[in-house]
């Protein structure tokens, strides 16, 4: 069925999905850390909105909670923490330019197509058009990994990691209307702890190789010396 025939809720979902992918792409292309963090925050907020929307329409109250969690964690707490770190460590000045952004972007779009192709069997599963969003969320996950592969900044890695989480979360919301509450809470807790640990680790890494460039973390290898 065409988008025109969908309810506004569904249309909104699709819109948000596309926005989220957009944010992922923006992150991929972004060279300044502060902006990266900012875009990440936007993504988190978008995710929260989506969850809230779903909660409203499906009137499943526990989704409100998870929406709230998402907002506080992904939308506010983690970005602010990252921003603080960046500022404290004075990383906001140095900008990391990709070797050639165009190719990375192309790769990203390729990933989107690929995940769509992979998800086709799922999409065929039921008339529910929102299922396409699964493809989107998988794309977000893969884009997050791509971000981690292309960036040398530890902070960027954290952002990528978190945006992978966003993708997962998005998938959970749109395809299954949210996981069971206990799982949601567990995941949220894990993410929180992870975020804190990241904070701790930045200082450890900083103190061991006075920078956050992960390419310098290559003492442990098996290559011919």
């Amino acid at each position, binding site marked *: 069925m065409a988008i025109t025939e969908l309810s506004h809720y569904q249309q909104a979902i699709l819109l948000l999905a596309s926005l989220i992918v957009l944010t992922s792409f923006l992150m991929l292309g972004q060279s300044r850390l502060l902006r990266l963090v900012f875009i990440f925050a936007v993504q988190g907020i978008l995710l929260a909105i989506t969850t809230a929307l779903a909660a409203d329409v499906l009137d499943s109250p526990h989704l409100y909670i998870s929406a709230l969690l998402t907002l506080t964690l992904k939308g506010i707490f983690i970005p602010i923490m990252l921003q603080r770190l960046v500022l404290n460590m004075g990383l906001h000045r140095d900008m990391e330019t990709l070797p050639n952004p165009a190719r990375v972007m192309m790769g990203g779009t390729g990933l989107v197509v690929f995940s769509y192709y*992979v*998800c086709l*069997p*799922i999409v*065929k*599963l*039921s008339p529910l058009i929102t299922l396409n969003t*699964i493809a989107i969320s*998988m794309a977000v*996950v893969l884009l997050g*990994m791509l971000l*981690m592969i292309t960036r040398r900044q*530890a902070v960027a*890695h954290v952002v990528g*990691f978190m945006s*992978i*989480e966003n*993708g*997962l979360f998005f*998938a*959970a919301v749109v*395809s*299954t209307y949210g*996981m*069971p509450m*206990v*799982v949601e809470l*567990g*995941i949220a*807790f*894990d993410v929180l*702890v*992870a975020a804190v*640990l*990241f904070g*701790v*680790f930045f200082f*450890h*890494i900083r103190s*061991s*190789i006075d920078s956050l460039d*992960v390419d310098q*973390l*290559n*003492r*442990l290898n*098996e290559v011919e010396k």
Partner: protein
Amino acid sequence: MIAVYLLLLIPLAGMLFLSRVRDSHQAGRINIRFNSLSLVASLWLAVDVLLEGPILSHSQMLYIDSFNVYLIALTAFVGLTTSIFSGPYMAHEQELGKVGKKRLRLYYTMYQGFMLAMYLVLTTNNMGVMWVAMEGATLATVLLVSLYRTPESVEAAWKYFILCGVGIAQALFGTVLLYFAAEQVHGIQETALLWTVLHEHASSLNPGVMSIAFVFLLVGYGTKIGLVPLHNWLPDAHSEGPTPMSAILSGLLLNDALYAVVRCKMLVDGSLGNHQAGNLMMGFGLLSFLVAALFLHRQTDIKRLFSYSSIEHMGLMTFAFGIGSPWATFAALFHMTTHSLTKSAIFVTVGYASQLAKTQRIEKIRGLIRTQPSIGWGLLIGTIAIAGFPPFGVFASEFLVLVATMNDYPWLTPLLLIGIGIAFAGLFRHIQPIVYGDVPEGQTAIRANMLPVMIHLGIVLFLGLAIPAFLGNWFNQATLLISGKLPL
């Protein structure tokens, strides 16, 4: 039933309690007590399951069957023996000034936290919670890997953290897909993540979704198992963390990750009805087995060496589970037991050896048998055992794997043959000079408590000679559960 709750509550209590104990020696002893308590609880649970069959808690959140109950007992046992070893060991490390009081407190707290996560992974019935617990295990150990705060250890911890995090995230995606597939089936919406329910309705789950889900789950948990090419964190984490950590990582964490994968495989097999999942596991297993075997040849750090051997053995188990025939499954289950016993014993010995030689570099450690026969023989016998020589238990399982492979995939046996040969050569060419030969100066005997090693190796030896009836029954039941048939 109470046993299960006890099993989860004891480590929790231990965690909270140890987080406020200041004296590290005392903390070590308390750690031992808590672990022995949970061992008691696990044995109690084992007896329950043995008598009454699978246990499902009222909330359906916890489920114990013959597959995971013996893993629980194993976890508790290895946890205990390792804690016995880690008390004096960490004390010695403290004397050397490698770690401070605060970090030791963290260490003991996280030890219990890790055990808690392990028990949760094993006991839970909810795939989501299983994921949470698995991630929790990572978070609990990541700070322990960087306990020494050396650049290497920090690097290792960071890699461990990021790689496992990314991997586990993919596992979560797989779980989501699982949940999604379950929701398509009517009538189980609210309980759609419970393994029992899923297993019940496995046949009606949508194959397309399940196969994609399994890929994500395999890559995700496979990172934790240390399957090549996702294994890269493993040797770093093992070699840089404190030795007891390596012992329980190798002996427990890898097992539980494999456990998770097997649980998922059971669902996927039920849904797909073909051998796709098995083939994937066989492929990964064989690849890991061969590559790790080759890596063994180039190691210069003794703990790294044995971590690669762990990868090799996990690969073998994954391969065996992938084959899926009763013999292979029995072999894999048995191998889980013997491997984690032997490997943790070896790591204990290795810890002493590196303390005694004041280095982990292989070419610096020589003539252990002369310096301290107990450690030398311990290491030698342990290596012989892990290399799969009878009458040690590891042999029995490797033997069955070979025979099973010869049954179902004869053309793969040459690869196994070569792999085992290469692996043995790689392991032994490093160990023999360490054990034999003349002693370098400055290498002096230390106070070492070889009791855990003896217990472990003793058990492994016994298992190689004869498997007691109740244990055999366990294995048979688990085999029946996983492969659907009894061996012979």
